[in-house]
């Protein structure tokens, strides 16, 4: 191993956010957005849409009201970094939202906080009160409120999130129209992940170059990783992007790592033989931060079973490919394991998973086949026997 993974401290370091915002207000909105575009920052929730472009689209819309939403519905199994960010540096998240609000011309911001994190409500509300008081000194009109979720993974999908905020079932909407033109209450809305907003603030502080210099062409900058499973050092780490899985496992593995699930339940399972050639990032396997390590004592059947159970329960049920597909994948591997179906049935299920990927309405049904296919392809014998 020649290259050591570089640890970075953009997210958790304390900054004078008032100073950053004050300097931002002296610049034009277009300049600020251009900096974010130039930095190459892509959404840190997992999907990886270019943040600056999202802001630009929302800014260019004509509307009497626009909204900024901070997506804190961190439900992807294996991800827990947003909770840590909201606990350690809430003021940076709020300042990132205010910056976004200024760029878009929005005066209202919402944090959609998952119900599982309700214990964060008192400290967050206090941070918001302090923040509002200080914003007054700047003369920036921007108010932030928290909306609580109630235990639905799919509400992390931005249109489902807005449905939930509007008091409905969290069922994803058709796109287009995209939220940047018709979002919350039909108004132009930018929905950004917690971590993304903090990075945007740091790019405003330090300029795009420093961020751009880190990482690779498609995956600029650094990223906060949530490391769990069979590792001697579980926790939250901000690392420069561009490392291979081999480097990652060298740093975090327990010496017996058999597989790593990159990107949570909806991500991909990579087996040991592919660690060397797998880049963690948008060129290789992207992740919202979730990295789950498994050593050779673990049954890959149990792991896949857990993931499929998760999707079967969390599918919103709106579209058939996902509702039925998730259920059939789960039942299918159970039947093969018990010997009620022949191993060849797995190929049938893989065809079904292709249909799910093409025909499902949102990312949930489109990505539920990821763990299924990657585990079947890498560990077929463990699923059958």
């Amino acid at each position, binding site marked *: 191993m020649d290259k050591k993974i570089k640890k970075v401290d953009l997210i958790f370091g304390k900054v004078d956010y008032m100073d950053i915002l004050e300097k931002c207000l002296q610049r034009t909105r277009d300049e600020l957005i251009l900096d974010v575009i130039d930095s190459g920052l892509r959404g840190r929730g997992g999907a990886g849409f270019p943040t600056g472009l999202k802001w630009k689209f929302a800014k260019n819309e004509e509307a009497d009201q626009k909204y900024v939403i901070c997506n804190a519905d*961190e*439900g*992807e*199994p*294996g*991800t*827990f970094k947003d*909770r840590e960010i909201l606990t350690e540096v809430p003021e940076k998240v709020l300042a990132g939202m205010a910056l976004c609000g200024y760029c878009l011309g929005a005066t209202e911001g919402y944090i959609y906080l*998952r*119900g*599982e*994190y*309700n*214990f964060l*409500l008192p400290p967050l509300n206090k941070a918001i009160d302090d923040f509002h008081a200080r914003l007054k000194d700047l003369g920036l009109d921007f108010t932030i409120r928290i*909306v*609580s*979720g*109630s*235990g*639905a*993974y799919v509400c992390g999908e931005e249109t489902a999130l807005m449905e*939930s*905020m*509007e*008091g*409905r*079932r*969290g*069922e994803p909407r058709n796109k287009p129209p995209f939220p940047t033109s018709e979002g919350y*209450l039909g108004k132009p809305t930018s929905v950004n992940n917690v971590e993304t907003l903090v990075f945007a603030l740091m790019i405003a502080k330090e300029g795009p170059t420093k961020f751009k210099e880190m990482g690779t062409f498609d995956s600029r900058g650094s990223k906060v990783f*949530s*490391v*769990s*499973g*069979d590792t001697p050092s*579980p*926790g*939250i780490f901000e690392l420069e992007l561009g490392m291979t899985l081999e480097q990652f496992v060298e740093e975090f593995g327990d010496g017996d790592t058999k597989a790593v*699930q990159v990107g949570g*339940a909806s991500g991909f399972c990579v087996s040991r033989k592919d660690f060397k050639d797998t880049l963690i990032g948008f060129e290789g396997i992207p992740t919202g931060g*979730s990295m*789950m390590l498994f050593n050779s004592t*673990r049954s890959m059947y*149990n*792991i896949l079973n*857990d*993931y499929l159970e*998760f999707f079967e*329960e*969390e599918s*919103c049920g709106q579209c058939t490919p996902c509702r039925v597909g998730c259920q059939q994948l789960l039942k299918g591997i159970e039947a093969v394991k018990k010997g009620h179906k022949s191993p060849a049935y797995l190929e049938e299920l893989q065809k079904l998973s292709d249909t799910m990927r093409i025909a499902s309405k949102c990312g949930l049904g489109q990505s539920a086949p990821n763990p299924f296919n990657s585990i079947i392809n890498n560990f077929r014998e463990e699923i059958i026997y």
Partner: protein
Amino acid sequence: MTKVKELVKEQAEKHGRQRTSLMPILQAVVKSEHYLSEEALEAIAEELDLSTADVFGTASFYTFLDTVPRGKYVIRVCKTITCHMKGKDEIIDTISDMLKIKLGETTTDKMFSLLQANCIGWCHKGPVMLINDEVYPEINPEKATEIINQYLKKG
């Protein structure tokens, strides 16, 4: 006016009667009543001028908006992969033995419900459980026993 209807009215005054207030009102009722009764759902529908079916449809979508009676303390043990690997089953068995209830059940005195939850975001400190809004990471059977005992004492 019954207690539930009063509560709904009070929450509607507080949050407003527009559709965006539905979630906060449902959440407040669950917090106070531990579930959404038919009476509560009807009262909310009436206050917000929605159909009861619409209100039930929304409520039933969300795992934390219970439509069956739950205990004063709802225990949710995380069941997703890392917590599974780190021994959530022993936690559930321990609590189940202590409270004499199975998963999904509520004690006869309506104090505790024992449920599982999908990933609650503490994978590096599993196993973990929520009791109402409180989170208890890095537990083992002994710690779980201690925590439940505290709640039993508190009543």
